[in-house]
């Protein structure tokens, strides 16, 4: 069976690379993008991922804007999203039930990813 594919959208290279490495170590296939726009472009060229890991604060197109766009594209509209958020004060993002707070706890992240059906 093909490994489940995760799509990681995160602008900080250090976080992006670390997470990619670790998740690949866990047996997942990981695609990445540095911001929302890049993500959308890439997602058009690949099959829909099992799960999207989404950072909110990014340049060019941030997480909130990405979510809006995601909803408009039927091919990816139903892909579950896990928001990686550093902001403890902000309310949870509408329409997204899974949140992982930064700094990311690895165990928690792997748990959420597993439970999300990937």
């Amino acid at each position, binding site marked *: 069976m093909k490994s489940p594919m995760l799509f990681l959208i995160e602008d900080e290279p250090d*976080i992006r690379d*670390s997470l990619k490495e670790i998740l690949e170590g866990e047996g997942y296939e990981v695609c990445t993008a540095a911001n929302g726009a890049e993500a959308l472009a890439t997602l058009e060229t690949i099959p829909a991922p099992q799960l999207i890991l989404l950072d909110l604060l990014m340049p060019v197109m941030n997480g909130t804007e990405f979510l809006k766009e995601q909803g408009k594209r039927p091919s990816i509209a139903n892909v579950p999203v896990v928001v990686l958020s550093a902001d403890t004060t902000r309310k949870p993002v509408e329409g997204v039930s899974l949140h992982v707070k930064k700094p990311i706890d*690895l165990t928690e992240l792997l748990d959420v990813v597993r439970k999300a059906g990937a």
Partner: protein
Amino acid sequence: MNGLGNLGGEQLETVEILLVDDREENLLALEAVLSDPGYRLIKANSGDAALRYLLDHTPAVILLDVQMPGLDGFGTASIIKASERTREIPIIFLTALNKDDKYVQRGYEHGAVDYIYKPFDAHILRSKVAVFADLHRKNERLLLAERKLMENERRERERKFAELEIRNLRRQQLEQRRYRELVDGINHGVVWASDETANVFSFVSPRAEEVLGYPVDKWFEEPGFWAAHIHPDDRDEFFARLKELGRSTESIGFEHRFLAADGRVIWLHTGLRLTSGSESNDLEIRGLSVDISKIKEAERTLEQSKLRSDLLAEVSLVLSESFDAGVCLQHVASSIAARFCSWVCIQGFDHAGLLRTLAAAHQDPSIHRQAQSQLQRWNACTELPAPGFYPHLPRQELGKICFHLEQLTFLDGLNLNSAIVCALTARGQRIGTLLLGCSGPGKFEQSDYALGDDLAYRIASAIDNAGLYREAQKAVRMRDEFLSIASHELKTPLTPLKIQTQQLLRLISKDSLSTVEPARVSRMLEISNRQIERLNKLIEDLLDISRISTGKMGLRVEEFDLMELLHDMNQRFSGHLAAAGCEMKIDGPESVRVRWDSFRVEQVLVNLLTNATKYAPGKPVEFTVKTVPEGVTIEVRDYGMGIAEADQKRIFQRFERAVSGTHFGGLGLGLYISTQIAEAHGGHLWVESALGVGSTFHLQMPWEAPGEPAETISKKDGGLVPTANAPVAAAHLN
């Protein structure tokens, strides 16, 4: 014959004695026997004659012969006894006839009191007659006495009655006098009486002249005088009330104005009463008109005061309800126009420093609508009127009360007769104007000016508070934004740090650490280390901000070579520069020795460098050092996206960035801190930039940082205090 009829020597009244006998000789004999000064003897020779006599006489006793032709004694006696008037007269029968008891009995039955037989005994006769005469006299006396008594009583009654009359009269006189005195004593009122149409006056109290100014005669001479001098506006009501008086009520009272002789308008309270006249049956009006001008004045003042305090209360309430000055002020203007004066206009400065007409209101709804539609045209004010009180407002002065020249025609149409211009000031500064205009009835008075000032004070405070509130809100918003960005920024290095650490722990716990390439482990630890550096920098920046705001960031000044520092920087950041594709070029003299806080200055230069690499990747960053006698300038030039002119000032402020916070990371503190450092050195940091071309930051510094310890540079949000120069080792240069 005095002996018999004489009672104790008194003169006796003459009594009449009636002798009735048909025989003359008997009558004479009787006469002789009974002759007495006290008797008047009347002879009658028949029953008829006797009766005739008795028609209008009342003798004391009747001596009646029984035997008479025609009407005999008994018959006569019966008739005598039958008459009410003569019934009581004692009758003595004279008879020669039968001494028989039956006969006698008959005689008594016929009313006799006694019988005397002929021939009679003179003594006995005289005695018997005397008795009856006496009786009669006594009777007469009693009657007389009774009559006298009644007469006395009557006189007594009359006397008492007369006395009562006199007392009443006196009392009336007294009352009249008192009344007159009372009436005279009313020195603020007039008592009057007139016919029922109040046309012809029958009485006016003398005080009338004092109270109303017209001589009393006028009232009588001119009919209708009273009504003619009632204020024209109140006349109709007066006559209506008069009619009412006649119809339904007995007395009424109402207030009205009267035109006094000296032209004053006096307020009177007139009470009217309709009564029947004292002399005739005509109806009369009695009136009392009291001067209540003072009361009215007090009422008016009280009413005004109440109006004012109500207005102030309402205005305060409206102003306190919302911080949205625009909406508020319109409400306030409308309130003032509704309650106080016809025209209200308010102007104030907006945040760009532009003077604008903020609100306008008029009492008349249609004019109000007109004003509202014109507000746009008067928006940017051309005039700032000087505060003042205009008790008169001739046309040529209208310019002094308008906010915009285009307002003049509008104001002209309002027909204002007076105006009040109050400056709105807050914290010693003029922040606008409150204009009040009056178009009648009445004009503004000095006391209204005071009210205007009061209103202006409240309005100015409200505007100021709204401004402060806005600023506070903005500050809070920015702080919240800062906090959200800060938390993101601080957590960003923590994430990989945590991930790397956890991963290493997992590898160790699975006993697989040995299977991992050392190079990979190194890389993981490098990543971790980098994050720690980033965190450290962030923390330092935040601490700097804190120090700056509490004025505790001190400079440690020392002598060093600026060029050396720059070259050092280039080396240290080579990795970072390479990653960004930026080349750091340094141009300037060989050596530039300065006396600055090298640590802090480096902080500034590094900040400028990292900004350039972030916003202008792939392009060179040029550092140019120029020297002049006064000091040194370091120019940092990049070829990046540039900064829009509107943002150029803003980016140096705390928490500000040229791009929005949600797109780019970074706390936006760098330039703010750099500016503070530059200024603490007595220097200056600014930028030249054009969009799409690039930016050049200029750091201009004196040769030496100022060193007086007492010198405090006070900034509105804390500042840097340069400390005395200390020979500190250049440990900051790593």
